[in-house]
């Protein structure tokens, strides 16, 4: 009798522990994508790349009209010039990225040697420094313009972020990014998911909250609010400040890991940057 009770208890504990353990990134991704596709059954999967415009027909009409003369066009042109203009040593970005400029689909990635998530802006700045140039501010100005050109050239590439299984640090970075996404912060006590999870599709003042699925595909973005083009980490900073939390540094570890997690959630979606948003 006692043996039976002990055995049942052991089985229960084992099952409980298994249930409590964190899901794998693949399981997370399936759950995440399935949640949004069930929440918005009329939105085709690939249309999630268009954010709130996938949900709001009137907003979409406006946005499509804006896209006829895209406000990011100048940024793309400036970025193209930057790509082709030699550094002081005569080399160009193409020397660092021989398969460029359509390279956005490779980012972000886990760099085993550096032991960190690497973003496109980090590699572009790395290229500049290797050629004797000063690094650029990652989320605005010329770097955002260079990114706009690269994103434009990369349109249609499919998001396929990899979390290498041979380096547990990559999984740790993914998990940190995941924790960041779901952590409530700031005076308003909001997490990213507070607005873009169960409240996605709802109206916040005059705006419709976009679903989290597809959030990383269209960067950099020309925002009417900014009056210029800016990167994903600039938006992260803005979101954090909106909930009255202190923002982190663009290209700092916190936002790199967050981008890693969010991009992994978007795996399978086509890239459609640069974008135009309000």
């Amino acid at each position: 009798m006692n043996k039976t009770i002990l055995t049942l208890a052991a089985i229960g504990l084992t099952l409980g522990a298994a249930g409590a353990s964190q899901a794998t990134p693949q399981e997370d991704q399936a759950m995440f994508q399935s949640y949004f596709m069930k929440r918005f059954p009329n939105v085709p999967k690939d249309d999630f790349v268009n954010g709130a415009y996938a949900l709001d027909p009137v907003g979409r009409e406006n946005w499509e009209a804006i896209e006829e003369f895209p406000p990011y066009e100048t940024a793309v042109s400036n970025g193209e010039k930057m790509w082709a203009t030699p550094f002081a040593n005569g080399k160009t970005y193409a020397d660092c990225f021989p398969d460029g400029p359509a390279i956005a689909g490779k980012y972000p990635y886990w760099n085993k040697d550096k032991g960190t998530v690497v973003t496109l802006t980090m590699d572009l700045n790395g290229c500049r420094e290797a050629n004797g140039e000063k690094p650029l501010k990652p989320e605005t100005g010329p770097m955002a313009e260079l990114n706009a050109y690269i994103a434009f050239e990369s349109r249609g590439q499919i998001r396929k972020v990899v979390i290498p299984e041979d380096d547990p640090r990559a999984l740790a970075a993914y998990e940190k990014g995941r924790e960041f996404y779901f952590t409530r912060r700031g005076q308003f006590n909001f997490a990213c998911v507070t607005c873009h999870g169960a409240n996605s599709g709802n109206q916040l003042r005059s705006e419709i909250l976009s679903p989290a699925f597809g959030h990383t595909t269209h960067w950099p973005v020309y925002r009417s609010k900014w009056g210029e083009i800016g990167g994903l980490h600039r938006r992260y900073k803005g979101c954090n400040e909106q909930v009255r939390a202190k923002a982190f540094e663009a290209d700092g570890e916190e936002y790199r890991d967050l981008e890693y997690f969010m991009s992994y959630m978007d795996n399978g979606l086509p890239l459609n940057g640069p974008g135009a948003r309000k």
Partner: protein
Amino acid sequence: MQIRTLFAGLLAATLMVGLPTLNLAQAAEGPAKAQKAKKKTQQAAKPTAPAASPASAPAPAAVPAAAAPSPAGAAAGAAAAGVAGAAAAGALAAPADGDQKAALDKAIADAQAARKKAASVGGEWRDTAKMIKQAEEAGAAGDFAKGLKLANEAQKQGELGYEQAVREKGAGFPDYMKKQ
């Protein structure tokens, strides 16, 4: 005769019990009164005693000599001018400013410590550092009450930000996503 003897005995007994009690109470009250008297004296001299600031508080910034005269200086000046009352009033007002400054400095230091603690776990709030700066500016402009209010609010934000970050540790997918 017997009744008179009885009253006399009762009176004697009352005196024997009551007098020592009264003496003891007076004896106990004595040091307290002496203490109060001493305190009053100290308070009169307090204007000149910056030692009233908490030991842990950072040293207050230089206060103009005219606003915070030294005790000895104030006393000497008052005597020389023959306006002891006016001098005493001035000396009392100046130290009050010194105390407020010290209190503000301590509140700002506490707020900074709370902010840094929150930042150490990634829980700093957007406006905390700004409020501390504003508290410093208010103090520099002599508005200690405003500065103190801001510093206390900033400290509260730092504490709440820290608690929030610790509470949120390990956050993950919400149940509504898991149970679809």
